[in-house]
């Protein structure tokens, strides 16, 4: 078991790197898409919707193959590069939907209030709408990151040397049922250990955000019973 774990753990940095970079890329690519979808001009809006619809319909594995084997003919891409690009693109519409929804949670009255103290459109957006929207976007974006962590396992299909790929080697090199169990069990534990802290931090941030904006508490999870948020001075 120890040998198995040591072998798989080598893949952890690759998995994390892949997930983090693809997540950042998708977050960035989502910005222009959100701009399009929220545009006042109908043609741009339609374009944004089309991009969202089309890209969202592409299965991740297909995107991975298209980028890796397709783009490979023009630029040289390592499997890791290809996976980052492919996942970044495929998940971008989901991030864009998160941004869009977050922006719409900021009510019209807030814009009115910004207008009423003489802020222009840009100032109103930067100082009033955005700070609130960002708080709404954080929990679902972290959720997206967890999805990205799990999605990264697919990258083994093009030979990215991540956790899954390491495990594949182990399993194909062995014949014993015990080794198989140890390996799959090991994978589960490793993913759990990667995801759990992220989920945990996500809950903390969500509670903080709700407290900041509404003074309300987010429902606690069972395993968070003992956690006390410091400095909650709600009257």
């Amino acid at each position, binding site marked *: 078991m120890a040998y198995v774990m040591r072998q798989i753990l080598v893949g952890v940095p690759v998995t994390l790197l892949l997930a983090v970079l693809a997540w950042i890329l998708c977050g960035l690519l989502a910005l222009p898409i959100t701009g399009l979808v929220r545009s006042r001009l109908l043609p741009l809006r339609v374009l944004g919707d089309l991009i969202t619809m089309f890209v969202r319909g592409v299965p991740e594995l297909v995107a991975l193959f298209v980028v890796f084997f397709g783009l490979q003919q023009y630029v040289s891409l390592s499997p890791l590069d290809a996976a980052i690009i492919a996942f970044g693109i495929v998940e971008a519409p989901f991030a864009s939907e998160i941004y869009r929804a977050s922006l719409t949670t900021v009510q019209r009255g807030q814009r009115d*209030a910004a207008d009423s103290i003489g802020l222009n459109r840009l100032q109103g957006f930067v100082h009033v709408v955005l700070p609130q929207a960002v708080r709404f976007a954080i929990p679902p974006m972290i959720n997206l990151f967890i999805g990205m962590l799990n999605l990264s396992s697919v990258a083994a299909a093009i030979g990215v040397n991540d956790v899954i790929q390491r495990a594949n080697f182990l399993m194909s090199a062995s014949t014993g049922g015990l080794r198989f169990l140890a390996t799959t069990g090991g994978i589960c534990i490793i993913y759990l250990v990667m995801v759990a802290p992220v989920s945990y931090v996500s809950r903390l941030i969500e509670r903080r955000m709700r407290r900041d904006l509404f003074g309300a508490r987010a429902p606690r999870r069972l395993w968070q019973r003992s956690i006390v948020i410091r400095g909650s001075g709600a009257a």
Partner: protein
Amino acid sequence: MPRGAQQPVRQRESEPPIEGLDRSAAAVSYVLHIERAVKRFGQATALDGVDFGVAGGERVAIVGRSGSGKTTLLRCLNLLETPTSGTLSYEGRVVGSWGGPSPRTPSRRELSQHRIHVGMVFQRFELFPHLTALGNVMLGLRRSLGYSKHEARERAMEQLALVGLAERARAHPHELSGGQQQRVAIARSLAMEPKVMLFDEPTSALDPELVDEVLAVILKLAERGMTMVAVTHELAFARDVATRMVVVDSGEIVEQGPPGDIIHSPASPVTHSLLRRLRLT
């Protein structure tokens, strides 16, 4: 502009159309004046040719049934709502004119400037939830008026002190009661040094026991000679504080005059039934 200029007259004759920048005597005596204001939302007509002006030092109470167009009228006065047609002037100068022979759309800059001159307090406060009370008051000072951080803080603290909330400056809106939130909203608006303050049902979202603290702040402003226009259901307050009462129904002004007169002897049946309902609540 004379403070507390005597206000016309019930059932004022509608004034002759003013063309473009040509200013009639009536337009000049008003700080804020909207003429022949029409506002349509799709098929619905919210304002149907309203002439409304407010002179310096005047305190106008606008009353009317819900959906009568009173809030729309208020929102047109600081151009949160753009009239479908009509002309809006501030201190005798045309800010914008729509749908007429000489249309004029204010630039973004002029729009901001106008809203600094004409402050607004909302029914649901609309404080910025991510900022403290102090931050709420400082934002306009910093970004619209270009105050330095230090100046803005000082001035914002003065305004919070004026509404009696200096010691709550660091609190976020959700940590304040509704009445306190509305007082912060008043301070936020007041900080811009507006010439006219608009109040859109400032107490109707409040628990009854919190109404008085907000009315007290508004009264304080009245005593300082602030020009204001308030949509309100508080009849007693309107009677005691307002210099003129305007009754709006179906997007038109049906009656106006001294609040005491209107409350005691309403001329229009619309006013009569409205007053009956307001007294009951």
